[in-house]
């Protein structure tokens, strides 16, 4: 950091970029309050009926429930697997750690559609299709890189001798990890968990190949309803998602100051 203030043109450009990036969000939020039965900007009139429509529609409620169960389940599993894997990789407990790390991170760079098709073929091959478990496994694959990434970053930021100190003071390996290493990497893990959760929540390309009729998630439902014609209830559900995300980020930041690990 230096204490030079940005010049006026820089500030202006920065503000314009921020506004430009936020335009879709603003449009969606505004449109969700419109009384018309089609999306329009500026909104005509002011109503909450689209929110009511969403929150009483069993299809939407079911999709929200599916998405939450999936995101929480996938994040929990990814957390356990990802943290354990990162720890082993970081301590170089396995030969070929670098190669394994790249492998675990590969879902970040492989196009999601490719992963979706690949998983579909794989699950068909092994005789699993269209169930919740399949979807959950697929979401673990796409969310685990976020956990691994933030766990590795956090681990490299701490002095490993603290864990050795704990072991010399009578803690076995797991206790030392639980009482010393884990609290120290917690902010990073919270950041990773949020990324993982959001990634699972918003995923369409992988989910669409694998979700059976009873596993429709919120983004899939939005996606299909947009195909059938847009009404402001889509904007309303999107607005709800935006509000939920902002709240989660706000409180997570307050509790852990995780932004340093993003």
């Amino acid at each position, binding site marked *: 950091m230096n204490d030079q203030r940005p010049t006026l043109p820089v500030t202006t450009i920065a503000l314009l970029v921020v506004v430009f990036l936020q335009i879709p969000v603003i449009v969606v939020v505004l449109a969700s309050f419109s009384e018309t039965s089609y999306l329009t900007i500026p909104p005509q009139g002011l109503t909450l009926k689209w929110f009511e429509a969403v929150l009483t529609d069993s299809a939407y409620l079911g999709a929200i429930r599916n998405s939450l169960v999936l995101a929480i389940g996938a994040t929990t599993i990814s957390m356990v697997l990802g943290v354990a894997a990162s720890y082993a990789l970081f301590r170089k407990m396995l030969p070929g750690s670098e190669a394994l790390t790249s492998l675990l991170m590969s879902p970040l760079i492989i196009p999601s559609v490719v992963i979706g098709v690949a998983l579909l073929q794989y699950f068909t091959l092994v005789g699993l299709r269209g169930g919740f478990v399949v979807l959950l496994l697929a979401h673990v694959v796409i969310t685990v890189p976020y956990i691994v990434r933030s766990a590795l970053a956090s681990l490299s930021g701490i002095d490993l001798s603290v864990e*050795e100190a704990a*072991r*010399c*003071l009578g803690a076995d390996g797991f206790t030392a990890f639980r*009482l010393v290493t884990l609290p120290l990497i917690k902010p990073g893990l919270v950041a990773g968990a949020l990324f993982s959760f959001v990634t699972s929540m918003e995923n369409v390309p992988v989910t669409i190949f694998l979700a059976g009729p009873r596993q429709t998630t919120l983004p899939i439902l939005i996606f299909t309803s947009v195909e059938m014609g847009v009404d402001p209830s889509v904007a309303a559900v999107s607005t709800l998602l935006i509000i939920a995300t902002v709240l989660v980020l706000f409180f997570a930041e307050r509790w852990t100051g995780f932004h340093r690990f993003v």
Partner: protein
Amino acid sequence: MSNLTLDHVVKRYSSVTVVKDVSLAIDEGEFVSLLGPSGCGKTTILRMVAGLIDPSGGTIRIGDRDVTRLPPNKRNIGLVFQSYALFPHLTVHENVAFGLRRKGQSGAALDARVGEALAMVRLAGYGERYPRQLSGGQQQRVAMARAIAPRPNVLLFDEPLSNLDAKLRDEMQIELKRLQRELGITTLFVTHDQAEALSLSDRVCVMQDGVIQQFAEPETIYRRPATAFVASFIGKPNRLAGTIRGGRVALDEQLELRSESDLSGDGRPVEVFIRQEAISLAASGDESVNRIAGTVALRSFSGPQVKYVVRIGSDQELVVEAPSSGPAGDLAPGQPVMLEVHPQDVLVLSRETAP
């Protein structure tokens, strides 16, 4: 409290052997320093004793227990790191309590033990602070309190004072010695600071390239170094090439010195070590001392001491240290001088193949 024994301990990393067949027996309550240049394997030995790395061979015993294959938490040791390695998310109190809690202590008994340990390092009342709110010296003392609180059988230190400034380091040395005396805990102390090793230790173990060169009391290490390496590593002695000739050591055709070292083997090439402070510029009249005629080539003043570079023999030089307030305090370059060295201060050691 127990003795600590290393028996033919070896550590190999793939093809390199960094600790080569080290055997060391430390008595109960003894303070031993491992001293040697960077990379000679001191930390490696310490970490093997702690159980943080596995030896490739040999056995390590604490008391009469073979701990070679035990994990660190089963060894009952206290380790103080160079980096302190305090737990940043815990208060000073909880840092010190960590080892006690692992032993199942809690409540008032635990608080009393923590208070006792903090008082010992003069940090009573600092319990509620976090490590980041302490100075380097205070953090170091918390690290010590944390290590001693569970009453370990063996205390291990890895250059614990090297991050402190010179003045604080002197204070902490005394503190540390006092603490170790009071507790009577067997201590292995790694350092590359010879003054620190000599002043703190009951015995010093000088190492080079993973091999013990000498393991003896500080006085012996200083006065009777066993090898040319030890002689040159401790202090900054004059180091001259010589040859054994008729029960004396010859520096050149004319100049022969008497010595109390082993002078057997006529014609054997040797190295001669003479400490700067062992050379006298004042004539004593004592017939048993070596007399060396020379000429002052250079004078350098450093407060209480003056150093002279004196040219002797055909083309050799000796650095001589003298008190600046004495009669030999202001000799000018070019002046002829007569140097006196007692035979016991002329150390003759076999010439090493690789210097």
